């Protein structure tokens, strides 16, 4: 059982990353992994990202996985002081949302802050106000956020900087969920716009 004790002494971030990697590998390869005592995956790991959560939006209203049911949604985890990837991704989501035209209202765009230490509801509202699309901005109890990050297979690590501040390493991938709250797909920034819009449109009309 050496490997188990080694795994326990790994820094948390490494463990989460390994979980993320295994989750994605399973997503691509299906459940074909051979039984291996050192690498036994639980049913939870076999499942795609997603699951129940209970957070609050920028107006203080409770939002859960149940609230979002009925419409597909694109969800992105970031933080408002992220200078680059987060605004770039949200700008892109806003653009794709706009390009959906009359279908735009048939899906939701969700932003979850992974920085509860800094991002209050007002910060998230202020951040989202810069983008030309209705986005549901969520925050909540730090423990609940952690739980959600884990079940959505989002890597998050707070990294102190030499200047006394901190930054947050995080998964910068958009996850797509169908109207039943089932994980459908991921999106990255490199995908051509038209292709991304077609994919969103398929999700809406599925």
């Amino acid at each position, binding site marked *: 059982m050496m490997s188990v004790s080694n795994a326990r002494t790994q820094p948390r971030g490494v463990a989460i990353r390994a979980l993320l990697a295994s989750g994605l590998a399973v997503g691509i390869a299906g459940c074909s992994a051979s039984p291996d005592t050192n690498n036994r995956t639980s049913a939870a790991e076999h499942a795609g990202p997603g699951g129940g959560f209970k957070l609050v939006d920028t107006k203080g209203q409770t939002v859960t996985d149940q609230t979002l049911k009925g419409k597909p949604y694109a969800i992105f985890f970031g933080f*408002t002081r992220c200078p680059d*990837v987060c605004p770039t991704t949200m700008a892109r989501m806003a653009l794709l949302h706009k390009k959906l035209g009359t279908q735009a209202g048939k899906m939701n765009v969700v932003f979850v802050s992974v920085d509860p230490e800094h991002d209050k509801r007002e910060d998230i509202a*202020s*951040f989202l106000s810069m983008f030309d699309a209705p986005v549901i901005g969520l925050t909540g109890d730090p423990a609940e956020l952690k739980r959600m990050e884990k079940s959505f297979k989002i890597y998050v690590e707070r990294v102190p900087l030499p*200047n006394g501040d901190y930054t947050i*390493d995080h998964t*910068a991938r958009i996850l797509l969920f169908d109207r039943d709250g089932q994980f459908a797909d991921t999106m*990255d920034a490199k995908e051509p716009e038209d292709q991304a819009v077609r994919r969103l449109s398929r999700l809406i009309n599925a």
Partner: protein
Amino acid sequence: MTPRIALALIAALASPLSAQIARKGSITAADPWSRATSPRANIGAGYVTVRNTSTQPDQLVSATSPRAAKVEIHTMSLDDSIMRMRPLPNGLEIPAGGEASLAPGGNHIMLIGLKSPLKAGERIPATLRFARAGDVRIAFKVVGAGSTVAGVRQGGRQ
């Protein structure tokens, strides 16, 4: 389309970013730009393309701006979709006869402790300090936060 309208269109498309080049010795800094920040944000990122015509490498060692309490040179990586940002304590090398691009998704100038949010249409003065060439003064042109990278390359959207 009349030639006059065609010319006006070309000028409009080519305008805001291609216009700005700062030069000092062997170093040129072209098209500095930044994204508007949210009303409550106190940090922002600046982008610029630096070319070095010298046969010696140069080093962007530090930067300052009257708009920010502190300016740092940062790098960002996207590895397996995980975004990581780190300061570059020794700055950034500009290879001899080459260039270093500070652009979204990679190296950038980090404006920390903004005295006020960056607004689209503004120009934010900054000084880049090079080990050999010395100080190069630039001004980041601020474009809308919702500008996509492709949009910025085409001239920005306010």
